[in-house]
Protein backbone atom coordinates (compact mmCIF):
# COMPACT_ATOMS: atom_id res chain seq x y z
CA UNK A 1 0.00 0.00 0.00
CA UNK A 2 1.54 3.32 -0.97
CA UNK A 3 0.86 6.69 0.59
CA UNK A 4 -1.10 7.92 -2.39
CA UNK A 5 -3.73 5.20 -1.82
CA UNK A 6 -4.23 6.48 1.72
CA UNK A 7 -4.49 10.16 0.77
CA UNK A 8 -6.81 9.45 -2.18
CA UNK A 9 -9.01 7.16 -0.05
CA UNK A 10 -9.16 9.85 2.62
CA UNK A 11 -10.03 12.51 0.06
CA UNK A 12 -12.82 10.41 -1.43
CA UNK A 13 -14.25 9.47 1.97
CA UNK A 14 -14.23 13.11 3.03
CA UNK A 15 -16.00 14.26 -0.14
CA UNK A 16 -18.60 11.51 0.13
CA UNK A 17 -19.19 12.27 3.80
CA UNK A 18 -19.73 15.96 3.05
CA UNK A 19 -22.22 15.03 0.30
CA UNK A 20 -24.30 12.87 2.64
CA UNK A 21 -26.93 15.22 4.14
CA UNK A 22 -28.15 12.80 6.84
CA UNK A 23 -24.64 12.59 8.24
CA UNK A 24 -24.25 16.32 8.46
CA UNK A 25 -27.66 16.80 10.04
CA UNK A 26 -26.96 14.23 12.75
CA UNK A 27 -23.34 15.17 13.36
CA UNK A 28 -23.66 18.94 13.29
CA UNK A 29 -27.26 20.12 13.40
CA UNK A 30 -29.10 17.84 15.86
CA UNK A 31 -26.57 18.22 18.68
CA UNK A 32 -27.05 21.99 18.38
CA UNK A 33 -30.80 21.51 18.68
CA UNK A 34 -30.03 19.57 21.85
CA UNK A 35 -27.98 22.44 23.22
CA UNK A 36 -30.85 24.83 22.59
CA UNK A 37 -33.52 22.57 24.08
CA UNK A 38 -31.68 21.17 27.12
CA UNK A 39 -29.83 24.41 27.79
CA UNK A 40 -33.13 26.29 27.59
CA UNK A 41 -34.86 23.84 29.93
CA UNK A 42 -32.19 23.45 32.60
CA UNK A 43 -29.95 26.52 32.31
CA UNK A 44 -26.88 26.17 34.51
CA UNK A 45 -28.50 26.06 37.93
CA UNK A 46 -27.19 23.08 39.93
CA UNK A 47 -29.91 20.84 41.28
CA UNK A 48 -30.56 22.14 44.84
CA UNK A 49 -30.95 18.61 46.22
CA UNK A 50 -27.73 17.55 44.45
CA UNK A 51 -29.42 14.40 43.19
CA UNK A 52 -29.14 15.05 39.45
CA UNK A 53 -26.43 16.50 37.19
CA UNK A 54 -23.74 14.99 39.42
CA UNK A 55 -23.64 18.10 41.55
CA UNK A 56 -22.88 20.58 38.73
CA UNK A 57 -25.09 22.94 36.75
CA UNK A 58 -27.26 21.68 33.89
CA UNK A 59 -25.28 23.16 30.99
CA UNK A 60 -22.00 22.13 32.62
CA UNK A 61 -23.37 18.59 32.88
CA UNK A 62 -24.59 18.58 29.30
CA UNK A 63 -21.69 20.13 27.41
CA UNK A 64 -19.52 16.96 27.56
CA UNK A 65 -22.67 14.90 26.92
CA UNK A 66 -23.32 16.85 23.71
CA UNK A 67 -19.81 16.00 22.60
CA UNK A 68 -20.54 12.31 23.16
CA UNK A 69 -23.63 12.60 20.94
CA UNK A 70 -21.56 13.95 18.07
CA UNK A 71 -19.19 10.99 18.40
CA UNK A 72 -22.16 8.62 18.51
CA UNK A 73 -23.75 10.07 15.39
CA UNK A 74 -20.52 9.76 13.39
CA UNK A 75 -19.79 6.27 14.72
CA UNK A 76 -23.24 4.77 14.70
CA UNK A 77 -24.92 6.52 11.75
CA UNK A 78 -22.50 7.84 9.15
CA UNK A 79 -19.80 5.15 9.25
CA UNK A 80 -22.12 2.11 9.16
CA UNK A 81 -24.32 3.66 6.46
CA UNK A 82 -21.32 4.29 4.24
CA UNK A 83 -19.69 0.89 4.80
CA UNK A 84 -22.89 -1.16 4.47
CA UNK A 85 -23.61 0.75 1.25
CA UNK A 86 -20.16 -0.17 -0.06
CA UNK A 87 -20.78 -3.84 0.69
CA UNK A 88 -24.32 -3.79 -0.64
CA UNK A 89 -23.33 -2.35 -4.01
CA UNK A 90 -20.11 -4.28 -4.51
CA UNK A 91 -17.96 -1.15 -4.12
CA UNK A 92 -15.73 -2.92 -1.64
CA UNK A 93 -15.32 -5.92 -3.97
CA UNK A 94 -14.42 -3.65 -6.86
CA UNK A 95 -11.89 -1.76 -4.75
CA UNK A 96 -10.39 -4.97 -3.43
CA UNK A 97 -10.08 -6.45 -6.92
CA UNK A 98 -8.35 -3.30 -8.12
CA UNK A 99 -5.73 -3.41 -5.41
CA UNK A 100 -7.32 -0.79 -3.15
CA UNK A 101 -7.03 -2.50 0.23
CA UNK A 102 -10.11 -2.57 2.44
CA UNK A 103 -7.85 -1.47 5.29
CA UNK A 104 -7.17 1.79 3.43
CA UNK A 105 -10.91 2.41 3.02
CA UNK A 106 -11.57 1.70 6.70
CA UNK A 107 -8.58 3.76 7.80
CA UNK A 108 -9.87 6.65 5.70
CA UNK A 109 -13.33 6.32 7.23
CA UNK A 110 -11.81 6.33 10.70
CA UNK A 111 -9.70 9.42 9.98
CA UNK A 112 -12.50 11.32 8.27
CA UNK A 113 -15.00 10.32 10.96
CA UNK A 114 -12.64 11.50 13.65
CA UNK A 115 -12.20 14.81 11.83
CA UNK A 116 -15.94 15.33 11.43
CA UNK A 117 -16.54 14.44 15.09
CA UNK A 118 -13.86 16.93 16.15
CA UNK A 119 -15.50 19.70 14.12
CA UNK A 120 -18.92 18.74 15.50
CA UNK A 121 -17.59 18.66 19.06
CA UNK A 122 -15.98 22.08 18.66
CA UNK A 123 -19.17 23.54 17.19
CA UNK A 124 -21.42 22.12 19.88
CA UNK A 125 -19.07 23.20 22.68
CA UNK A 126 -18.80 26.71 21.28
CA UNK A 127 -22.56 26.87 20.91
CA UNK A 128 -23.07 25.72 24.47
CA UNK A 129 -20.74 28.43 25.80
CA UNK A 130 -22.39 31.07 23.58
CA UNK A 131 -25.93 30.31 24.66
CA UNK A 132 -25.33 29.35 28.27
CA UNK A 133 -22.89 29.61 31.10
CA UNK A 134 -21.25 26.21 31.64
CA UNK A 135 -18.14 25.89 33.78
CA UNK A 136 -15.00 25.40 31.65
CA UNK A 137 -13.28 22.00 31.72
CA UNK A 138 -11.00 21.46 34.72
CA UNK A 139 -8.66 19.23 32.69
CA UNK A 140 -9.04 19.89 28.93
CA UNK A 141 -6.35 17.32 28.08
CA UNK A 142 -8.31 14.62 29.86
CA UNK A 143 -11.44 15.64 27.94
CA UNK A 144 -9.58 15.50 24.62
CA UNK A 145 -8.13 12.07 25.45
CA UNK A 146 -11.57 10.74 26.40
CA UNK A 147 -13.01 12.23 23.21
CA UNK A 148 -10.36 10.56 21.04
CA UNK A 149 -10.61 7.15 22.72
CA UNK A 150 -14.40 7.24 22.75
CA UNK A 151 -14.82 8.43 19.17
CA UNK A 152 -12.40 5.83 17.82
CA UNK A 153 -14.24 3.15 19.83
CA UNK A 154 -17.65 4.24 18.49
CA UNK A 155 -16.34 4.43 14.91
CA UNK A 156 -14.95 0.89 15.24
CA UNK A 157 -18.33 -0.18 16.59
CA UNK A 158 -19.82 1.53 13.54
CA UNK A 159 -17.46 -0.39 11.26
CA UNK A 160 -18.76 -3.58 12.89
CA UNK A 161 -22.36 -2.49 12.25
CA UNK A 162 -21.47 -1.65 8.65
CA UNK A 163 -19.80 -5.04 8.23
CA UNK A 164 -22.85 -6.91 9.51
CA UNK A 165 -25.93 -4.98 8.31
CA UNK A 166 -26.94 -5.92 4.77
CA UNK A 167 -27.82 -2.56 3.22
CA UNK A 168 -27.14 1.16 3.60
CA UNK A 169 -30.81 1.68 4.38
CA UNK A 170 -30.75 -0.92 7.15
CA UNK A 171 -27.58 0.60 8.58
CA UNK A 172 -29.01 4.12 8.53
CA UNK A 173 -32.27 2.99 10.10
CA UNK A 174 -30.54 1.00 12.80
CA UNK A 175 -28.04 3.80 13.41
CA UNK A 176 -30.67 6.54 13.80
CA UNK A 177 -32.74 4.33 16.09
CA UNK A 178 -29.71 3.45 18.18
CA UNK A 179 -28.69 7.11 18.36
CA UNK A 180 -32.04 8.16 19.81
CA UNK A 181 -32.04 5.28 22.28
CA UNK A 182 -28.55 6.28 23.42
CA UNK A 183 -29.59 9.93 23.60
CA UNK A 184 -32.49 9.10 25.90
CA UNK A 185 -30.91 6.38 28.03
CA UNK A 186 -27.16 7.00 27.83
CA UNK A 187 -26.97 10.14 29.95
CA UNK A 188 -27.07 12.80 27.23
CA UNK A 189 -30.82 13.42 27.38
CA UNK A 190 -32.77 13.23 30.62
CA UNK A 191 -30.36 12.98 33.58
CA UNK A 192 -29.79 9.25 34.29
CA UNK A 193 -30.84 9.80 37.90
CA UNK A 194 -34.44 10.59 36.92
CA UNK A 195 -34.84 7.50 34.72
CA UNK A 196 -36.83 4.55 36.08
CA UNK A 197 -34.54 1.80 37.41
CA UNK A 198 -34.93 -0.51 34.43
CA UNK A 199 -34.18 2.24 31.93
CA UNK A 200 -31.29 3.43 34.04
CA UNK A 201 -29.80 -0.08 34.02
CA UNK A 202 -30.13 -0.35 30.25
CA UNK A 203 -28.64 3.10 29.90
CA UNK A 204 -25.65 2.13 31.99
CA UNK A 205 -24.99 -0.73 29.57
CA UNK A 206 -25.07 1.41 26.42
CA UNK A 207 -21.74 2.30 24.83
CA UNK A 208 -22.58 5.99 25.28
CA UNK A 209 -22.56 5.96 29.10
CA UNK A 210 -18.84 5.17 29.46
CA UNK A 211 -18.04 7.98 27.02
CA UNK A 212 -20.27 10.45 28.85
CA UNK A 213 -18.58 9.58 32.16
CA UNK A 214 -15.08 9.56 30.66
CA UNK A 215 -15.72 13.07 29.29
CA UNK A 216 -17.46 14.46 32.38
CA UNK A 217 -14.94 13.34 35.02
CA UNK A 218 -11.97 15.39 33.76
CA UNK A 219 -14.39 18.22 32.93
CA UNK A 220 -15.99 18.46 36.39
CA UNK A 221 -13.23 17.34 38.76
CA UNK A 222 -10.07 17.21 36.68
CA UNK A 223 -9.62 13.50 37.36
CA UNK A 224 -9.55 10.94 34.53
CA UNK A 225 -11.81 7.90 34.57
CA UNK A 226 -9.45 5.03 33.65
CA UNK A 227 -12.17 2.41 34.16
CA UNK A 228 -14.46 3.96 31.56
CA UNK A 229 -11.54 4.63 29.19
CA UNK A 230 -10.70 0.91 29.44
CA UNK A 231 -14.33 -0.03 28.71
CA UNK A 232 -14.25 2.21 25.62
CA UNK A 233 -10.95 0.71 24.47
CA UNK A 234 -12.41 -2.78 24.94
CA UNK A 235 -15.54 -1.87 22.93
CA UNK A 236 -13.27 -0.65 20.14
CA UNK A 237 -10.96 -3.67 20.20
CA UNK A 238 -13.75 -6.25 20.23
CA UNK A 239 -15.65 -4.40 17.48
CA UNK A 240 -12.55 -4.25 15.33
CA UNK A 241 -11.77 -7.93 15.81
CA UNK A 242 -15.32 -8.98 14.91
CA UNK A 243 -15.54 -6.56 11.98
CA UNK A 244 -12.28 -7.65 10.39
CA UNK A 245 -13.26 -11.29 10.81
CA UNK A 246 -16.63 -10.56 9.15
CA UNK A 247 -15.12 -8.52 6.31
CA UNK A 248 -12.55 -11.20 5.52
CA UNK A 249 -15.37 -13.69 5.06
CA UNK A 250 -17.27 -11.41 2.67
Amino acid sequence: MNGRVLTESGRVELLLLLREPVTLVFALALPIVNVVVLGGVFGDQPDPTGEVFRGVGGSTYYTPAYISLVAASVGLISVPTQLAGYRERGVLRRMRASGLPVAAVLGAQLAVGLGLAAVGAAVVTAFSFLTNDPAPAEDPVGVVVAFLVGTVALILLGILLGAVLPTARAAQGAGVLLWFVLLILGGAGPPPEVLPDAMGTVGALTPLRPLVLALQDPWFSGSWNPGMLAVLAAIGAVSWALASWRLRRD
Partner: protein
Amino acid sequence: MRGLRKTYGKTTAVDDVSFTVEPGEIVGILGPNGSGKTTTVECLQGLRRPDQGDVRVLGLDPRHQVATLRRRIGCQLQDAALPDRLRVGEAVRLFASVGDRRPDIDALLREWGLREKRRAPFGSLSGGQRQRLFVALALVNDPELVFLDEMTTGLDPTARRDAWRLVERVRDRGAAIVLVTHFMDEAERLCDRLVVLRDGAVVATGTPAELVHRHGGGLTASFSSDLPLPVFAELPGVRDVRRHGTTVEVTGEPAVVLRIGHLLVPTGHVPADLLVRQATLEDAYIRLVGDGTQDGTQDGADPPTRGDEPGTAVAR
Protein backbone atom coordinates in the same frame (compact mmCIF):
# COMPACT_ATOMS: atom_id res chain seq x y z
CA MET B 1 -4.90 -22.67 -14.19
CA ARG B 2 -4.86 -26.40 -13.62
CA GLY B 3 -7.34 -28.53 -11.73
CA LEU B 4 -9.16 -25.66 -10.02
CA ARG B 5 -11.69 -26.76 -7.43
CA LYS B 6 -13.85 -24.57 -5.19
CA THR B 7 -16.70 -25.60 -2.95
CA TYR B 8 -19.13 -23.50 -0.90
CA GLY B 9 -20.31 -25.70 1.93
CA LYS B 10 -21.64 -28.81 0.27
CA THR B 11 -21.98 -27.24 -3.15
CA THR B 12 -19.12 -27.71 -5.56
CA ALA B 13 -18.95 -24.54 -7.63
CA VAL B 14 -15.96 -25.45 -9.78
CA ASP B 15 -14.34 -28.84 -10.21
CA ASP B 16 -11.14 -29.56 -12.11
CA VAL B 17 -11.16 -26.47 -14.34
CA SER B 18 -7.99 -25.95 -16.39
CA PHE B 19 -7.13 -23.45 -19.10
CA THR B 20 -4.48 -20.95 -20.14
CA VAL B 21 -4.57 -17.44 -21.54
CA GLU B 22 -1.74 -16.21 -23.78
CA PRO B 23 -0.60 -12.58 -24.01
CA GLY B 24 -2.67 -10.54 -26.47
CA GLU B 25 -5.41 -13.14 -26.51
CA ILE B 26 -9.11 -12.75 -25.70
CA VAL B 27 -10.40 -15.86 -23.98
CA GLY B 28 -14.13 -16.13 -23.46
CA ILE B 29 -15.69 -18.07 -20.60
CA LEU B 30 -19.18 -19.27 -21.46
CA GLY B 31 -21.69 -21.23 -19.46
CA PRO B 32 -25.17 -21.11 -17.99
CA ASN B 33 -25.90 -19.21 -14.77
CA GLY B 34 -24.37 -21.08 -11.86
CA SER B 35 -21.89 -22.95 -14.03
CA GLY B 36 -18.92 -21.48 -12.14
CA LYS B 37 -17.81 -18.69 -14.48
CA THR B 38 -17.63 -15.95 -11.89
CA THR B 39 -16.11 -18.26 -9.25
CA THR B 40 -13.38 -19.22 -11.72
CA VAL B 41 -12.59 -15.60 -12.48
CA GLU B 42 -12.66 -14.61 -8.81
CA CYS B 43 -10.09 -17.32 -8.04
CA LEU B 44 -7.86 -15.85 -10.75
CA GLN B 45 -8.28 -12.35 -9.30
CA GLY B 46 -7.45 -13.57 -5.81
CA LEU B 47 -10.91 -12.64 -4.53
CA ARG B 48 -11.56 -16.27 -3.60
CA ARG B 49 -9.26 -18.99 -2.37
CA PRO B 50 -9.38 -22.15 -4.45
CA ASP B 51 -9.68 -25.37 -2.42
CA GLN B 52 -7.50 -27.24 -4.88
CA GLY B 53 -5.56 -26.66 -8.06
CA ASP B 54 -2.60 -24.73 -9.36
CA VAL B 55 -3.43 -21.15 -10.32
CA ARG B 56 -0.78 -18.91 -11.88
CA VAL B 57 -1.60 -15.44 -13.13
CA LEU B 58 1.23 -13.53 -14.83
CA GLY B 59 3.55 -16.00 -13.10
CA LEU B 60 2.12 -15.07 -9.67
CA ASP B 61 0.13 -17.12 -7.20
CA PRO B 62 -3.11 -15.22 -6.42
CA ARG B 63 -3.23 -16.89 -3.01
CA HIS B 64 0.03 -15.45 -1.74
CA GLN B 65 1.07 -12.60 -4.07
CA VAL B 66 -2.28 -10.94 -4.38
CA ALA B 67 -1.08 -7.39 -3.74
CA THR B 68 1.51 -7.55 -6.53
CA LEU B 69 -0.95 -9.30 -8.79
CA ARG B 70 -3.67 -6.70 -8.40
CA ARG B 71 -1.38 -3.92 -9.54
CA ARG B 72 -0.88 -5.80 -12.81
CA ILE B 73 -4.45 -6.84 -13.57
CA GLY B 74 -7.59 -4.85 -14.30
CA CYS B 75 -11.03 -5.98 -13.28
CA GLN B 76 -14.56 -5.26 -14.42
CA LEU B 77 -16.73 -7.13 -11.94
CA GLN B 78 -20.30 -8.22 -12.34
CA ASP B 79 -22.71 -6.32 -10.04
CA ALA B 80 -20.10 -4.01 -8.59
CA ALA B 81 -21.00 -0.35 -8.59
CA LEU B 82 -19.50 2.85 -7.20
CA PRO B 83 -20.99 5.26 -4.65
CA ASP B 84 -23.66 7.37 -6.39
CA ARG B 85 -22.17 10.63 -5.17
CA LEU B 86 -18.63 9.83 -6.29
CA ARG B 87 -17.71 11.82 -9.39
CA VAL B 88 -16.12 10.30 -12.48
CA GLY B 89 -12.81 12.15 -12.13
CA GLU B 90 -12.57 11.30 -8.43
CA ALA B 91 -13.15 7.60 -9.12
CA VAL B 92 -10.40 7.54 -11.73
CA ARG B 93 -8.00 9.36 -9.39
CA LEU B 94 -8.77 6.92 -6.57
CA PHE B 95 -8.22 3.81 -8.68
CA ALA B 96 -5.12 5.34 -10.26
CA SER B 97 -3.53 5.76 -6.84
CA VAL B 98 -2.88 2.01 -6.65
CA GLY B 99 -0.31 2.12 -9.45
CA ASP B 100 3.28 3.22 -9.13
CA ARG B 101 3.07 5.75 -11.93
CA ARG B 102 0.70 8.68 -12.24
CA PRO B 103 -1.42 8.09 -15.33
CA ASP B 104 -2.73 10.94 -17.48
CA ILE B 105 -6.29 10.97 -16.20
CA ASP B 106 -7.46 13.59 -18.69
CA ALA B 107 -6.19 11.52 -21.61
CA LEU B 108 -7.83 8.39 -20.24
CA LEU B 109 -11.19 10.14 -19.81
CA ARG B 110 -10.93 11.56 -23.31
CA GLU B 111 -10.10 8.15 -24.73
CA TRP B 112 -13.23 6.61 -23.22
CA GLY B 113 -15.49 9.55 -24.06
CA LEU B 114 -15.95 10.64 -20.45
CA ARG B 115 -14.11 13.95 -20.46
CA GLU B 116 -17.23 16.08 -20.35
CA LYS B 117 -18.55 13.80 -17.58
CA ARG B 118 -15.55 14.35 -15.36
CA ARG B 119 -17.54 16.19 -12.71
CA ALA B 120 -20.69 14.08 -13.09
CA PRO B 121 -21.65 11.88 -10.11
CA PHE B 122 -21.63 8.14 -10.81
CA GLY B 123 -25.36 7.96 -10.02
CA SER B 124 -26.20 10.25 -12.95
CA LEU B 125 -24.41 8.18 -15.61
CA SER B 126 -26.23 6.06 -18.20
CA GLY B 127 -25.59 2.33 -18.45
CA GLY B 128 -23.21 2.77 -21.35
CA GLN B 129 -21.31 5.56 -19.59
CA ARG B 130 -20.97 3.40 -16.47
CA GLN B 131 -19.55 0.55 -18.51
CA ARG B 132 -17.09 2.92 -20.16
CA LEU B 133 -16.07 4.20 -16.73
CA PHE B 134 -15.62 0.65 -15.40
CA VAL B 135 -13.47 -0.26 -18.39
CA ALA B 136 -11.47 2.93 -17.93
CA LEU B 137 -10.98 2.07 -14.23
CA ALA B 138 -9.91 -1.46 -15.15
CA LEU B 139 -7.32 0.01 -17.52
CA VAL B 140 -6.11 2.97 -15.50
CA ASN B 141 -2.93 1.27 -14.33
CA ASP B 142 -2.07 -0.26 -17.71
CA PRO B 143 -2.75 -3.88 -16.74
CA GLU B 144 -1.24 -6.86 -18.53
CA LEU B 145 -4.37 -8.92 -18.00
CA VAL B 146 -7.94 -7.63 -17.90
CA PHE B 147 -11.00 -9.45 -16.56
CA LEU B 148 -14.36 -8.39 -17.96
CA ASP B 149 -17.29 -10.13 -16.27
CA GLU B 150 -20.62 -9.73 -18.11
CA MET B 151 -19.77 -6.24 -19.19
CA THR B 152 -22.62 -5.94 -21.70
CA THR B 153 -25.45 -7.48 -19.67
CA GLY B 154 -28.22 -4.90 -19.48
CA LEU B 155 -26.90 -2.68 -22.26
CA ASP B 156 -28.93 -1.78 -25.33
CA PRO B 157 -27.68 -3.07 -28.71
CA THR B 158 -25.88 0.15 -29.61
CA ALA B 159 -24.13 0.34 -26.27
CA ARG B 160 -23.14 -3.33 -26.58
CA ARG B 161 -21.51 -2.71 -29.93
CA ASP B 162 -19.69 0.28 -28.46
CA ALA B 163 -18.50 -1.93 -25.61
CA TRP B 164 -17.17 -4.49 -28.10
CA ARG B 165 -15.12 -1.81 -29.79
CA LEU B 166 -13.72 -0.89 -26.39
CA VAL B 167 -12.67 -4.49 -25.77
CA GLU B 168 -10.93 -4.64 -29.12
CA ARG B 169 -9.10 -1.44 -28.31
CA VAL B 170 -7.96 -2.91 -25.00
CA ARG B 171 -6.64 -5.97 -26.82
CA ASP B 172 -4.93 -3.73 -29.36
CA ARG B 173 -2.99 -2.16 -26.49
CA GLY B 174 -1.46 -5.59 -25.95
CA ALA B 175 -3.31 -6.81 -22.87
CA ALA B 176 -4.69 -10.31 -22.53
CA ILE B 177 -8.41 -10.41 -21.77
CA VAL B 178 -10.62 -12.89 -19.96
CA LEU B 179 -14.20 -12.19 -21.00
CA VAL B 180 -17.12 -13.77 -19.14
CA THR B 181 -20.26 -13.58 -21.22
CA HIS B 182 -23.73 -14.95 -21.87
CA PHE B 183 -23.89 -13.70 -25.43
CA MET B 184 -22.85 -15.93 -28.30
CA ASP B 185 -22.53 -13.12 -30.79
CA GLU B 186 -20.22 -11.34 -28.38
CA ALA B 187 -18.08 -14.45 -27.88
CA GLU B 188 -17.93 -15.11 -31.62
CA ARG B 189 -17.03 -11.55 -32.47
CA LEU B 190 -14.42 -10.94 -29.79
CA CYS B 191 -12.87 -14.14 -28.53
CA ASP B 192 -9.86 -15.94 -29.91
CA ARG B 193 -10.59 -18.92 -27.74
CA LEU B 194 -13.52 -20.10 -25.67
CA VAL B 195 -13.86 -22.17 -22.53
CA VAL B 196 -17.35 -23.59 -22.01
CA LEU B 197 -18.32 -24.47 -18.44
CA ARG B 198 -21.22 -26.59 -17.29
CA ASP B 199 -21.91 -27.46 -13.66
CA GLY B 200 -18.45 -26.26 -12.68
CA ALA B 201 -16.54 -28.32 -15.21
CA VAL B 202 -15.01 -27.52 -18.60
CA VAL B 203 -17.03 -29.22 -21.34
CA ALA B 204 -15.21 -27.77 -24.34
CA THR B 205 -12.40 -25.42 -25.33
CA GLY B 206 -11.29 -24.11 -28.70
CA THR B 207 -11.70 -21.26 -31.14
CA PRO B 208 -15.29 -20.29 -31.90
CA ALA B 209 -14.94 -21.92 -35.34
CA GLU B 210 -13.61 -25.14 -33.82
CA LEU B 211 -16.48 -25.32 -31.37
CA VAL B 212 -19.00 -24.75 -34.14
CA HIS B 213 -17.30 -27.40 -36.25
CA ARG B 214 -17.00 -29.98 -33.48
CA HIS B 215 -20.20 -29.42 -31.57
CA GLY B 216 -22.50 -27.34 -33.78
CA GLY B 217 -24.13 -30.32 -35.47
CA GLY B 218 -22.88 -29.43 -38.95
CA LEU B 219 -24.61 -27.91 -41.90
CA THR B 220 -28.26 -28.36 -42.79
CA ALA B 221 -29.49 -28.13 -46.35
CA SER B 222 -33.23 -28.15 -47.01
CA PHE B 223 -34.87 -28.21 -50.40
CA SER B 224 -37.87 -29.69 -52.24
CA SER B 225 -37.27 -33.05 -53.79
CA ASP B 226 -39.29 -36.16 -54.51
CA LEU B 227 -36.22 -38.42 -54.61
CA PRO B 228 -36.30 -41.15 -51.89
CA LEU B 229 -34.43 -40.34 -48.69
CA PRO B 230 -31.87 -43.21 -48.91
CA VAL B 231 -30.44 -41.55 -52.03
CA PHE B 232 -29.29 -38.68 -49.83
CA ALA B 233 -28.45 -40.80 -46.81
CA GLU B 234 -25.88 -42.71 -48.86
CA LEU B 235 -23.91 -39.56 -49.73
CA PRO B 236 -20.53 -39.33 -47.94
CA GLY B 237 -20.52 -37.05 -44.89
CA VAL B 238 -24.30 -37.13 -44.35
CA ARG B 239 -25.37 -37.67 -40.75
CA ASP B 240 -29.11 -37.29 -40.87
CA VAL B 241 -31.89 -37.09 -43.42
CA ARG B 242 -35.51 -36.11 -42.78
CA ARG B 243 -38.55 -35.25 -44.82
CA HIS B 244 -41.09 -32.57 -43.85
CA GLY B 245 -43.88 -32.69 -46.45
CA THR B 246 -42.17 -32.10 -49.79
CA THR B 247 -39.03 -30.69 -48.16
CA VAL B 248 -35.96 -32.81 -47.57
CA GLU B 249 -33.56 -31.80 -44.79
CA VAL B 250 -30.03 -33.16 -44.95
CA THR B 251 -27.55 -32.62 -42.10
CA GLY B 252 -23.83 -33.36 -42.26
CA GLU B 253 -20.39 -32.01 -43.01
CA PRO B 254 -20.11 -28.78 -45.02
CA ALA B 255 -19.13 -30.65 -48.20
CA VAL B 256 -22.54 -32.34 -48.15
CA VAL B 257 -24.03 -29.40 -50.00
CA LEU B 258 -21.67 -30.05 -52.93
CA ARG B 259 -22.58 -33.75 -52.95
CA ILE B 260 -26.26 -32.87 -53.10
CA GLY B 261 -25.63 -30.47 -55.95
CA HIS B 262 -23.64 -33.10 -57.75
CA LEU B 263 -26.54 -35.52 -57.34
CA LEU B 264 -29.36 -33.17 -58.30
CA VAL B 265 -27.96 -31.14 -61.23
CA PRO B 266 -27.68 -34.10 -63.66
CA THR B 267 -31.29 -35.06 -62.93
CA GLY B 268 -32.46 -31.62 -64.03
CA HIS B 269 -34.29 -31.11 -60.71
CA VAL B 270 -32.54 -28.05 -59.39
CA PRO B 271 -34.62 -26.91 -56.40
CA ALA B 272 -35.31 -23.20 -56.36
CA ASP B 273 -35.91 -23.24 -52.60
CA LEU B 274 -32.51 -24.58 -51.49
CA LEU B 275 -31.70 -23.22 -48.06
CA VAL B 276 -28.35 -23.89 -46.43
CA ARG B 277 -27.92 -23.19 -42.77
CA GLN B 278 -24.51 -23.34 -41.13
CA ALA B 279 -24.42 -24.28 -37.46
CA THR B 280 -23.79 -21.30 -35.20
CA LEU B 281 -21.87 -20.99 -32.00
CA GLU B 282 -25.22 -20.91 -30.26
CA ASP B 283 -26.07 -24.35 -31.69
CA ALA B 284 -22.76 -25.66 -30.41
CA TYR B 285 -23.30 -24.03 -27.03
CA ILE B 286 -26.80 -25.42 -26.58
CA ARG B 287 -25.55 -28.90 -27.50
CA LEU B 288 -22.74 -28.55 -24.99
CA VAL B 289 -24.64 -27.22 -22.00
CA GLY B 290 -28.07 -28.73 -22.57
CA ASP B 291 -31.32 -27.35 -23.90
CA GLY B 292 -31.27 -24.36 -21.61
CA THR B 293 -33.88 -25.42 -19.10
CA GLN B 294 -31.74 -23.87 -16.40
CA ASP B 295 -30.51 -20.99 -18.49
CA GLY B 296 -31.29 -19.82 -21.98
CA THR B 297 -33.10 -16.67 -20.93
CA GLN B 298 -30.33 -14.38 -22.09
CA ASP B 299 -29.50 -16.39 -25.17
CA GLY B 300 -33.06 -16.54 -26.34
CA ALA B 301 -32.82 -12.86 -27.19
CA ASP B 302 -30.52 -13.66 -30.09
CA PRO B 303 -32.21 -15.87 -32.68
CA PRO B 304 -29.59 -17.98 -34.45
CA THR B 305 -30.84 -17.27 -37.96
CA ARG B 306 -30.10 -13.56 -38.11
CA GLY B 307 -28.51 -12.81 -41.45
CA ASP B 308 -25.79 -10.51 -40.14
CA GLU B 309 -24.43 -13.03 -37.71
CA PRO B 310 -21.08 -14.49 -38.67
CA GLY B 311 -21.35 -18.16 -39.50
CA THR B 312 -24.91 -17.96 -40.70
CA ALA B 313 -25.16 -18.33 -44.42
CA VAL B 314 -28.43 -18.07 -46.24
CA ALA B 315 -28.16 -19.06 -49.89
CA ARG B 316 -30.64 -19.67 -52.67
